[in-house]
């Protein structure tokens, strides 16, 4: 495990050196600040829970942005080293193949976590310190931060998998873009289309739940928009099963478990494929 941490540390050092960490942190902080400032305008201050509104708007933004950042970070992980010619040197050192994959993933996850927690957290801390009076649902905000990192981790794992299966960097980049398009944009549209066309004949609540868990972005959205009462009021959403008589199995723990699985399964696959690779 030690070698994995050494590799993770090196990834973070590279992230600091090529300004990735600074750039993403500033981007997320700027968006969080502007959304908080703008977001409180329409609702006013009377009776509304400003933090809940922040959670709604920030999580909607995160769904688009964090997967993209995660894929950009990770698609290069293995295939980039291979193309630069540094992979063979790395593997000639006392490291196991799984440690390379795990180390890269851990390093990228740390970069994402720093950017998210410092960016979002810093922006909100600055607002509340400057007298913005952000009273409200801090646990929901904390849950959003944590689940955002988890969403990022899921897409990091997908990007790492893409990086391991192909031989060329450009192909991995193409796959990363496709993954983003499918999971973040197309999946929901297709699902909506199916639901409208199907009119509930085949796709019942159970199947719908399963289909929602099959996309990490949906699992993240449901977790944050329906996870807390104060938030779901502003999100204008209810859990997919709530209209029926308690048929949904999509509890917050189940959604979190889905996100964890979305990180763990691609990562395990990437490790297994990379371990058998002949260089």
């Amino acid at each position, binding site marked *: 495990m030690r070698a994995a941490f050494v*590799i993770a540390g*090196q990834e973070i050092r*590279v992230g600091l*050196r090529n300004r990735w960490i600074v750039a993403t942190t500033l981007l997320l902080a700027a968006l969080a600040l502007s959304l908080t400032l703008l977001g409180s305008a329409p609702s006013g201050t009377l009776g509304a829970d400003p933090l809940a509104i922040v959670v709604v708007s920030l999580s909607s933004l995160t769904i688009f942005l964090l997967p993209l950042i995660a894929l950009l970070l990770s698609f290069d992980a293995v295939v980039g080293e291979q193309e*630069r010619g*540094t992979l*063979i040197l790395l593997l*000639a050192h006392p490291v196991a193949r799984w440690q390379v994959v795990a180390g890269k993933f851990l390093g990228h996850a740390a970069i994402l976590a720093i950017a998210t927690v410092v960016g979002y957290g810093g922006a909100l801390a600055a607002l509340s310190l400057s007298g913005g009076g952000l009273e409200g649902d801090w646990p929901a905000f904390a849950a959003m931060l944590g689940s955002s990192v988890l969403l990022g981790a899921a897409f990091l794992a997908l990007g790492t998998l893409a990086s391991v299966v192909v031989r060329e960097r450009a192909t991995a980049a193409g796959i990363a873009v496709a993954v983003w398009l499918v999971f973040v944009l197309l999946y929901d549209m297709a699902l909506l289309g199916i639901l409208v066309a199907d009119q509930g004949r085949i796709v019942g609540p159970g199947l719908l739940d399963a289909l929602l868990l099959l996309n990490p972005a949906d699992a993240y959205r449901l977790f944050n928009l329906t996870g807390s009462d104060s938030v779901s009021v502003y999100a204008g959403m209810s859990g997919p099963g709530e209209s029926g008589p308690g048929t949904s199995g999509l509890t917050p723990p189940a959604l979190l478990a889905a996100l964890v699985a979305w990180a763990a399964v691609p990562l395990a696959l990437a490790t297994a494929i990379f371990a058998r690779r*002949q260089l």
Partner: protein
Amino acid sequence: MTPIASLNGVSKRYGALTAAENIDLELRGGETAALVGHNGAGKTTLIKLILGLVSPSSGRVDVLGCDPASSRGAALRERLGFLPENVAFHGAMTGRELLGFYARLKRRGGTEVDGLLRRVGLAEAAGRRVSTFSKGMRQRLGLAQALIGKPELLLLDEPTSGLDPASRADFYRTVDDLRAEGATVLISTHALAEIESHADRIAVLHRGRLVALGGMNELRLAAALPVRLRFTVTPCGTGRLLERLGASVEIFERSERRLEIGCPAAEKTKMLRRLGDLWQLIGDVEVKTPGLPEIYSRLVDREEAR
């Protein structure tokens, strides 16, 4: 002497391509061995097999008592050093940072890093980004990286390609130092003339097969190349010289004042003795023993003809 690494009947196939075929090779402790062969002869494949980066299609690889491609390979690689062909680094990092990273992977402290940078002559440039390094500096950083942790076995893949003569000399000095320190070194190279005087044994590879293996003398015998004798003679003396030497000698050059003949290495002195009183015709004599470049092309030609 116990072998540091051994390959027994090792073959490696990539799909239809056979990169190594039935190779038997032992590296003895403390020796400097050279792998020579054309591009694609299987030199890098052999090094990758020893490092455990690829596993053999058949046969057995054993390095320091274990199989490098097994799960124990990672621990084994702590005792190996490797300089890849066309070594590359992450350009955004400095030389010292990169060397520190590889030292941490090998569980070595940072104190060793500065010493190694000094040893390869990069102490001044260590704080600069590697992207500003010249090819020679990068190669030297690669060598420093390979030397981390005093490896028992060093694998150097085309270490001198693209280096200027001064850097090459520096490099071979380091190799000789390492040999004096007792390290086992395996160098793959195209630079046949250079490696001759630095290697104890030479393995000649051709199309994935081990064509010959041994010291320079053994290779010379195996190649059965003639030693060339080049005489400068008084005008019109060449005919009399040839008469005396016998009809069987091979003539490479004959002019009014010059005669170059070839004879088997073992008969060199006999030939010279045979000249007897004709010595007075000879102004000068040059004995040319075949070097590794000639031996190599003879061995390869013979292998091709098979």
